């Protein structure tokens, strides 16, 4: 399946670029997510179908945590692909523009799949940098002045950050000379042979590099700009999958620390930057004026929560996986719905938007329910993941940290709810017509995602539990 994951989207993208016909572009848009869903199922059912050349086989793997992140990516990718049909219709793009967009999306997703499936640390780095390069053009897709600024900041800041991560990888090779391999399995199995000094120094660099990509404070400068200026389906991909794939990279490095019994050092960094991210997002959330930037700061907040989850070790790791799933799906739903609002009001500012429930009730309700899902209202699973993280703080003897944790969460929830209710309720501006005719592509993906979250939230079935738990076992 790995060969299909890499080659099918690329081949379809090239065909779509070479033959810009509507039917071909639709196939190139919708077939890859179907293939990814099949691949995820095949892997879940342990059907192995590798047709990679022998020399390439060791470089890719499908471990439990990889399968989990791949599944989350696939759900977001499928939603974004369907929503893109509405995006095309609402912007009246030419066939050529559509083909370019579709091709860029496929390259971007393949690069992210590469990060998730890479079995070699330096190869993973190559794919992380490839995600930056492939997504920068997508951010600039609408060719606006502001999106140009956002893409430049994104590509430059992330490239420099990731270059530093490569410095970390080289430094790790100094410490792991006796292992003489950067394959993750070798690094985990022989972690005790790595020189602790070089491991810590290399971690500092890798942490800064991948942390830049994840958008963790204080190295988050690119994130609000890129997330707000990208087309809404691309924002959903950035927030719902790109941040996760870089996070998985850090989880794999953290696993080396756990195997070497040095996690105290990395846990401290995760905890510190996690709380800093919560604080920064809380501060900005109270004065936010742009609803897409609001969602971007919410991503920084949620990455902070994930970092805290990582720092809490075996107690926090189940909550971490549940939060990854819940955040990605809720945030995708929010970003896609923000695309509907942008189409309706032609503005990203919160101030001129009101009465969404009157002007487009489905968008209005999706906006409210997605917001409730992301701030962690029961029955949505973020409630449970946050609850489990607070419990883990207690178990780790860090109960006093629950106070700032709750404080920042409440501020962020207040800021978001305030803006969302202001936009959803009240009178719709007089010049806005009732437009309940957007077609299913503008609503169905969000509805499906929220439905999945609802089902997971009210009852984590044994299958879902074991799926999350097997991913969580990676860090235990």
């Amino acid at each position, binding site marked *: 399946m790995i060969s299909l994951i890499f080659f099918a989207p690329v081949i379809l993208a090239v065909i779509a670029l070479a033959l810009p016909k509507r039917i071909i572009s639709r196939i190139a848009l919708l077939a890859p997510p179907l293939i990814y869903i099949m691949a995820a199922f095949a892997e879940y059912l342990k059907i192995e179908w590798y047709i990679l050349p022998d020399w*390439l086989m060791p*470089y890719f793997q499908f471990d439990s945590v990889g399968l989990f992140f791949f599944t989350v990516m696939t759900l977001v990718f499928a939603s974004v692909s369907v929503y893109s049909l509405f995006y095309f219709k609402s912007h009246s793009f030419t066939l050529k523009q559509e083909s370019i967009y579709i091709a860029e999306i496929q390259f971007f997703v393949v690069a992210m799949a590469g990060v998730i499936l890479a079995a*070699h640390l*330096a*190869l993973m*780095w*190559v*794919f992380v*940098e*490839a995600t*930056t*390069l492939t997504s*920068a*053009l997508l951010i*600039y897709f609408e060719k606006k*002045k*502001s999106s*140009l*600024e*956002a*893409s*430049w*900041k994104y*590509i*430059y800041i992330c*490239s*420099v950050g990731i*270059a530093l991560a*490569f*410095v970390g990888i*080289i430094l790790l*090779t*100094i*410490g792991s*000379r006796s292992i*003489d391999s*950067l394959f993750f399995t070798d690094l985990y199995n022989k972690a005790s042979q790595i*020189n602790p000094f*070089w491991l810590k120094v290399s971690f500092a660099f890798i942490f800064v590099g991948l942390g830049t990509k994840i958008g963790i404070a204080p190295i988050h400068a690119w994130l*609000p*700009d890129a997330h*707000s*200026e990208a087309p809404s389906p691309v924002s959903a991909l950035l927030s719902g999958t790109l941040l996760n794939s870089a996070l998985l990279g850090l989880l794999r490095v953290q696993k080396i620390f756990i195997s070497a019994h040095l996690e105290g050092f990395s846990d401290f960094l995760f905890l510190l930057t996690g709380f800093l991210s919560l604080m920064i997002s809380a501060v*900005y959330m109270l*004065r*936010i*004026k742009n609803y897409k*930037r609001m969602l971007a700061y919410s991503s920084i907040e949620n990455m902070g929560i994930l970092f805290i989850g990582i720092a809490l070790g075996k107690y926090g790791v189940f909550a971490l996986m549940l939060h990854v799933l819940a955040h990605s799906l809720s945030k995708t739903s929010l970003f896609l719905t923000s695309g509907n609002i942008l189409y309706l009001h032609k503005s990203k500012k919160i101030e001129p938007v009101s009465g969404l429930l009157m002007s487009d009730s489905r968008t209005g309700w999706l906006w409210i329910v997605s917001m409730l899902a992301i701030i962690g209202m029961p029955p949505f699973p973020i409630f449970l993941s946050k609850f489990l993280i607070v419990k883990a703080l207690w178990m780790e003897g860090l109960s006093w940290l629950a106070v700032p944790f709750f404080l920042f969460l409440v501020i962020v929830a207040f800021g978001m709810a305030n803006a969302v209710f202001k936009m959803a309720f009240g009178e719709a501006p007089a010049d806005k017509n009732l437009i309940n005719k957007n077609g299913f592509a503008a609503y169905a993906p969000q509805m499906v995602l929220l439905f999945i979250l609802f089902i997971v939230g009210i009852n984590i079935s044994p299958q879902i539990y074991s799926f999350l738990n097997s991913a969580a076992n990676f860090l235990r």
Partner: protein
Amino acid sequence: MTNILIILLGTSVLYVFAVSRIESYVKTLALQGVFLFLLVITDIHKINWLNLGFLMFETLLIKAVFIPVFLLRVIRKNEIGREVEPYISQFYSILIASGIFMFGFVAAFWAARTNAGIKPLYFGMSLVLIVASLFLIVNRKRIITHILCYMILENGIFLLSLSVANEMPMLVNIGVLLDLFVGIYLFVIFFNKIQEMYDGSHVDILTELRD
């Protein structure tokens, strides 16, 4: 011989600190590519032929010829002459550069005393290139200078990988080079767009997005 090459590499960074003509930066970059190429071939007995061929291709063709020629064409097409006044004046910049060099030499002495199997001068000078390029990125305003300093950063990382002398698999080497190549290409595309849209090309004009 290698020590002289490494010192020359370091001197080329000092030169970038001292001058403000953008074309001089590009020529320095090409020269760094040549120095790296010479370093690779003087280490000939330690690496296999396939890797050596690849490294020669990377340093001589890509780093010393292709990328500098590409950037030089962009600079001439856009008629960019000099760097605008940096945030920290040239005098203080050179003082800071001396500090960075001192740090590099201390790191080299330290590396010589550890048993980590690193080549000390390579290690120290690679840190100089990395730290100096980061300082230049922060201090300089022109976007094209940022692209050039990114290349110096990449050269520093390349030197660091030589100091460790651990070979990466060929798949990774090709991936890293492809990323660098596409990265520079995209940087230049965005740089050209910024020139067109903003009527200027230094970072101070990029102020549309803020909270």
